[in-house]
């Protein structure tokens, strides 16, 4: 993959007639896009289908892309919308589980349990975290993905999801708190 070319360079080449160079953009964003789609849709097949649709829409919309925002933000916004439409078709609510409820159930993180974490290898923690993310409500898993995997800022996440920045920050805080609770639960059970 030619990493030296910026997204903007590739788009310019595509516009100049080198359409096959779109493969570079697909290769650059397919894994990050797939991770995001999977966080929202929770199903590999649906996620891949949504990702394909998003890439097709992005290609057809290249003409309208003026480069005012980053290509990545624009791409994730399209993917995010495609995924929400898919969820709508499945009649699944994006935020069907209330995290407030979850947080209330688990209460504050117990102080002494963090010492248990230090006994766990990072690799194990990663596996636990992955499982914990899968248990998170989709809207929080999505914010976690956009922030940590897609490396978007609060402002960019707000642009993608069309949610106010304050809400993004709150979601991120709650998601991390819930994740921390989930991890503590896992680790306590494992060390019982």
């Amino acid at each position, binding site marked *: 993959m030619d990493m030296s070319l910026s997204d903007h360079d590739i788009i310019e080449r595509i*516009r100049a007639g080198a359409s096959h160079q779109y493969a570079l953009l*697909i290769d650059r964003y397919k894994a990050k896009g797939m991770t995001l789609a999977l966080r929202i849709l929770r199903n590999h097949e649906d996620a891949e289908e949504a990702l394909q649709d998003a890439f097709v829409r992005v290609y057809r919309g290249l003409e309208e892309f003026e480069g005012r925002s980053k290509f990545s933000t624009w791409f994730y916004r399209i993917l995010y919308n495609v995924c929400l439409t898919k969820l709508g078709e499945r009649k699944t609510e994006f935020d069907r589980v209330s995290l407030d409820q979850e947080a209330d159930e688990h209460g*504050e993180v117990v102080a*002494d349990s963090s010492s248990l974490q230090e006994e766990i290898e990072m690799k194990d923690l990663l596996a636990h975290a992955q499982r914990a993310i899968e248990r998170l409500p989709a809207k929080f898993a999505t914010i976690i993905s956009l922030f*940590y995997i897609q490396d978007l800022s609060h402002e960019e996440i707000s642009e993608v999801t069309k949610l106010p920045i304050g809400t993004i920050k709150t979601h991120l805080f709650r998601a991390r708190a819930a994740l921390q609770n989930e991890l503590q639960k896992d680790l306590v059970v494992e060390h019982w």
Partner: protein
Amino acid sequence: MNGHLSENQIQHLVDRNGSNEDMMRWNTHLQTCEACRSRTDAFRRLDRVLHMMPLVEPSEGFTGKVLKKIGLREAPSFWWMFFKNFAPLVALAIVLVITYFVLSASGLFSQNAPSTTSVLSLPQVSGAFAKGTDTMTAWLATYFSWIGKGGKLVLYLVVIFGGVALLDRFILTPTIRRKALTGRF
């Protein structure tokens, strides 16, 4: 500071998101509170783990599937690119050589040719081209005995197809692509 840091304060601390005054106050508290230090460490560890989360790859051949859906082909191989760019150049060379031979054999540019300032009539031009192609076909037949009466036709076809291929490669296709992508010619 009374009591422990709240979860929100710890997260602000981990994100280095508080005001200078708040950060100083929270850090001072951490120095004396083992419980809050542990909780902060746990959040820092979570933050590191989340940054390390592995990506999920789509299935094999995903890029090809998308390109097919769009109606594009995957990036061509080196040899295809070489052939793609080499073939039109060869076609251009053949067309130029044939044109040169035909024109030079037509007598249009000989010393006895009509003055270039005077306008040639269509029969004069077509006659000259016919003479040129006859000469060239006869010349080719001395090297390639299989070129018979159809040689002249083959010569015309080569020039026509070569010309069309060049027109397509360098003008039509790029223009159509540009129009499709940008809406402009």
